[in-house]
């Protein structure tokens, strides 16, 4: 009896989070409903993003009042977001797995807290600092030595900057998991005559697979939503899909950031609603990625249970 108010208050507080999520989805759906009606399916497949003639008079098209020539298509931004994030994961994965294994196995126990703290601190650095470093150091480097056209802004720079930001996330998650692997697994593998490399790859890594996937999904979530750093190094592409590693790109988050003030000068308000529709698209992408990862990890768990 004494516990009921405690239980109720805990219940209401814990329901606050899914309620907030539902509120955000509902707001996006309601606010972008006219844009969804106007844009239709061409929104996701269209390469052209045109706010229309904001200095002319609005016209009526497809039953909505929009600026003349308005045509909203986000394929460029979706492509830029997905390709840069996955490329970032590709670059970050060997770095972070290597760092975690190094910190867990090869570092003297006295040094481990210091070095792992350093890795955690990289995750705390604000993203705009990474963007500034990208502009000052990375872009001239890539422009002079790597890029065939001399242009440093683009897909490669964005992916490298993202990779640097997400490496500590994967590394610290994996390090925690590796430290929690029972000593018996390691020692029995050594006792059976396995080399250090075999102990790590065959006795320890399989046990942390779920956590690794979880860490990668967390990192992917950060990469998909990263706005500031990417806006500074991506090259702001518009109406053109990336064709090579050195093509300028635009990501969804950085595009919403740079377009918002222009969209607000649209008197019909269709531009801002279309931006809300882009946000909805990003939300669906992130949801899809997280659901896919959840299915992957629960599948892995089932496999492990059957084997034991």
């Amino acid at each position, binding site marked *: 009896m004494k516990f009921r108010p405690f239980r109720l208050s805990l219940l209401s507080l814990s329901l606050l989070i899914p309620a907030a999520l539902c509120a955000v989805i509902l707001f996006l759906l309601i606010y972008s409903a006219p844009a969804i009606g106007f844009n239709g399916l061409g929104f996701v497949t269209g*390469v*052209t*993003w*045109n*706010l229309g*003639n*904001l*200095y*002319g*008079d*609005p016209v009526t098209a497809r039953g909505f009042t929009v600026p003349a*020539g308005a*045509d909203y298509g986000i394929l460029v931004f979706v492509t830029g977001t997905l390709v840069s994030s996955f490329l970032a994961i590709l670059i970050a994965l060997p770095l972070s797995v290597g760092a975690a294994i190094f910190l867990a196995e090869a570092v003297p126990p006295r040094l481990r807290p210091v070095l792992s703290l350093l890795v955690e601190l990289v995750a705390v650095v604000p993203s705009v600092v990474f963007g500034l470093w990208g*502009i000052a150091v990375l*872009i*001239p480097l890539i*422009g002079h030595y790597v890029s065939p*056209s*001399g*242009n*440093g*802004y683009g897909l490669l720079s964005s992916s490298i900057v993202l990779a640097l930001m997400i490496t500590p996330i994967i590394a610290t998650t994996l390090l925690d998991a590796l*430290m*929690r692997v029972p000593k018996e697994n390691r020692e029995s593998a050594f006792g059976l005559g396995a080399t250090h490399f075999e102990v790590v790859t065959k006795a320890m890594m399989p046990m942390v697979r779920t956590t690794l996937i979880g860490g990668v999904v967390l990192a992917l979530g950060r990469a998909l939503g990263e706005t500031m750093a990417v*806006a*500074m190094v991506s*090259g*702001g*592409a*518009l*109406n*053109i899909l990336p*064709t090579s590693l050195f*093509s*300028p790109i*635009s990501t969804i988050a950085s595009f919403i950031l*740079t*377009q918002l*003030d*222009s969209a*607000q*000068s649209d*008197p019909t308000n269709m531009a801002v609603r279309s931006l809300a529709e882009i946000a909805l698209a990003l939300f669906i992408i992130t949801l899809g990625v997280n659901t896919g990862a959840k299915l992957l990890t629960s599948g892995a768990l089932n496999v492990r249970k059957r084997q034991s």
Partner: protein
Amino acid sequence: MKLSNMLRRATALRSGVAALALAAATVAVAGPAHAATTLVETGSSLLYPLFNLWVPAFTASHPGVQITTTSTGSGAGIAQSIKGLVQIGASDAYMADALVHHNPNMLNVPLAISSQAINYNLPGLGNAHIKLSGPILAGIYSGKITMWNAPAIRAANPGVNLPAHKIIPIHRVDGSGDTFLFTQYLSRSTPSWAHSVAYGTTVSWPAVEGGIGANGNSGMVSAAAANPYSVAYIGVSYAAAAAKAGLGVAALKNAEGQYVLPNAETVGAAAASVVTVTPPDERISMIFAHGKNAYPIANYEYAIVNAKQADATTAASLRTFLNWAVTDGNAPQFLDQVHFLPLPDAIKTLSKTQIAKIK
């Protein structure tokens, strides 16, 4: 291991929160030293260097007013002034008709006359003042002209050794008054551009392989400096930075067919052509102005302000500052540093009439 980790993190968290609370308390206590009116300005990166020269001089002679300035682009200046988030929205572009109909209280007050240069990064040709025209630039920015040694550019520049290299056109990604000026020049000089892309603070730039988007005038300078064989439209207040970065200034073809560079004479000629026809709401463009010597990309720099301010003190401070800006602020000691021109007397009178409407 886990427990000690948890304890360590709990202690760290507690000391972190305590430090934060202490800092907040200090700020709250030390905060408002004395009640001064604060005016917030945001917007055009072209006008930003001039505002940074104005603010120290103005606050030195008017200690009761504080002004904060930021550079976010003309689109942001207009939008945030309309929403009431800032008192002064700096913009190179006047408000569109539809926007004025929706917000009849907004004023477009010219503060100075500025211009825009077309800068290029051609190694070795920095001082050559390459001749470019509206149709050539429209061709470059729509992907029809891809190489620096294209026939159209060679025809305009006889005797200049143009490299056989791809042109990298750089545009603004943020809502930009410079984009407005540049695209208006292209629209007025090239009918095909006017029909396909038109003009505005944001336009749907045609797909060009390798085209780059930059943020703000300073972003344009860095992007142009970092990319050889690029071309960018940069406000004249950044002329020193562009020159330092080794960028050349193009001579542009005006409405009379003459190739002119931006300087006091040519920009003054452009301004003179619209002074007598500037309407009371002062929304007029001097792009591609008539006049043998007129520079084709010149404009009034606007302060977008709401005639209805939140309270009388803010309105009074705003009137004081804006009146100061169009009189004392138009002195050579400020304008020469950013290569702007002062407003003609007739325009100063019109601006003061508009400023008097701020209540």
